[in-house]
């Protein structure tokens, strides 16, 4: 397995200094945009499975952040703030379309295929991908916020309205369940 997890959840506070400089007018808004656009887009895509909708929601999110930026008070939780807005935008979208499933074109596991992986990795990824889709929405969201949004547990807790320890507990319990599922099916 050559793939290396890119998320470095514990070293993202450094970004807060940049956010602060945007708030103070020392930097352009594009600093925030560049920091978050990929993760925000991937987060939306993982929820809607449709690139056009993911692009629309990403645009809505950044214009919303732009207009609400003066309301943000620098408390070192910008990531939790921006992903809470993302989550709210997604749920608003859901209420508007009220069409779960009609346009639900599942993202293919081949999207994430790494040609350098070997057979067992591919099998494992296929199994994992299939299994993750059977998890309930809250569990999938926990994985999304951790692995796609790359949030720390304290920030995930803020987004989903749970304490950091409760979030950690749920996360590791879920990881254990996924592990035992894979062991049982290997």
């Amino acid at each position: 397995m050559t793939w290396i997890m890119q998320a470095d959840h514990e070293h993202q506070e450094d970004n807060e200094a940049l956010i602060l400089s945007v708030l103070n007018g020392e930097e352009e808004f594009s600093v925030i945009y560049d920091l978050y656009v990929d993760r925000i887009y991937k987060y939306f895509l993982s929820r809607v499975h449709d690139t056009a909708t993911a692009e629309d929601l990403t645009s809505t999110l950044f214009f919303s952040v732009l207009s609400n930026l003066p309301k943000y008070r620098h408390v070192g939780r910008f990531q939790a703030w921006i992903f809470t807005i993302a989550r709210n935008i997604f749920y608003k979208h859901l209420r508007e379309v009220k069409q779960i499933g009609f346009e639900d074109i599942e993202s293919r596991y081949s999207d994430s295929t790494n040609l350098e992986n070997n057979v067992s990795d591919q099998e494992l990824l296929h199994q994992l991908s299939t299994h993750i889709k059977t998890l309930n929405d809250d569990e999938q969201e926990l994985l999304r916020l951790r692995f796609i949004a790359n949030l720390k547990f304290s920030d995930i807790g803020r987004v989903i309205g749970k304490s950091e320890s409760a979030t950690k507990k749920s996360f590791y319990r879920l990881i254990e369940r996924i592990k035992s599922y894979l062991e049982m099916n290997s």
Partner: protein
Amino acid sequence: MNTNPNLNIENYIAQAMDQPMPDKNFKSSLRSQLNKAYRKPDKQISSQLNFRPVLLTGLATLVVLFVAFLFFNPNAVNAIRSIFSFIPGVGLTDSTSGDYLIVGEEAVRVEGVTFQVDNGYATSDETVLLLKVSGLTPEMLYTEDEHNLFPKPVYQLLSKANKAIDLTEQGARWDGISGYEIKLIGPALEKFNGEYKLTMTNTPFANPELSPTEIELPLSFNQISDPEIGLPVIDLSLPLPRFEIGENQEHLQSQESIQAEATEIVDPVQIEGIKIVQDTDGTILFGRLSWNDESLSIPRFSPLKVVLRNNDGENLPIDFYPVQEERSSNDLLWLPWAFKTKQSLSSGNYEIAFEGLVERRIKDYPIIVPTEVLNDYSKLKAYEIEIDIDGTSIILSDFFVSQAGGESILSFIIGSEGGVEDAMVFTESFSGLSVSQVDNGRIKVELRVSGPVELSDGSVIIKSIDYRMKEAISKDFVIP
């Protein structure tokens, strides 16, 4: 060195969940739009008011006189208190306004049943709590027909001073005995104190003679420093089994029935347990798709077309209805669905049909091509393999093999009348797979193999195929 045993599995999960990057054109276009719309805030400027010593002395004197006036005049205190109490964040009263979030509460276990409120909030408009109940036995739960026989719980949120607000059920995520979640909603809290308790007269959805009654759950709230951050989305929209309508009770009385007729089986997949709930502006139908074959799964509920017909054969307009029904186990062979009609349905016979459901068949299908075909490019190109899956014919065609630099590429097309959406193919020395849509019903599979690809011995195997069912599945039901 990281010794966390979970890290490896976390890496795999992260990779399995990874999504493609956004399109570069989209990114740069949005970036320039945002740059145009952005106006830099003024840099923070420190106060430029320079008080002169004389002015400061005068101001201090005024403050002393004012405090003395308040000290000797209680009426003035009350007047000022009442003025300030209207200003959020400023005031002399003990009430504060703002948003409050539930602190994750420990579960309370009563007679084997677990109650927990670990999500919720209070704002100046409303109070919302998410109550989770689990551990009920089948005997405790009442059946669908019994719900009118038992009292509905009365929910109250009590402050330390025993001031109460009433909460009502607004939605639920229901999974029978595995547990359920209920969204409770009430008015804003008048005066905010951090400590509360939620009381309910009896266990929701349960026979009060067999399940806990007079339940109390301690709750505490934390003020949110930044309202934009805190409020969780509590979006449970599946109506409760005893969903009630506020208006026109006589005509819109809640009706619910589980239809017992046998499903018209054209596939191992069946529509079952249709429930009907009359709402003010339409009828909500919800139920499950189930199957009993473990080699089959429905990766998602997304039919190409959903048709609802009345007894006269008229098609009635219908929308998807958002539902989050929790699947407590991953081995369950069912998926939930829900729809809402544009107008309330009257008594009569109806039929609901789902066309073009996606099925995933997880089974090994070896690809075997005779040697004489493999040796002739034109024969290989024209060669077709048919796989029969429960009467659905899947055709493999347009085989092509190339070899360069120690790597072989095998490509072929998979199609069916209903349409194929995805497939997983393996062989030994596999090095990569890509799947792309050729047209509406067909996909192209490209398999990379290190060394030569062997198609004559069955070592190239299709592990799973996602295809759309050609036949619709349907079910009749009656609204009494």
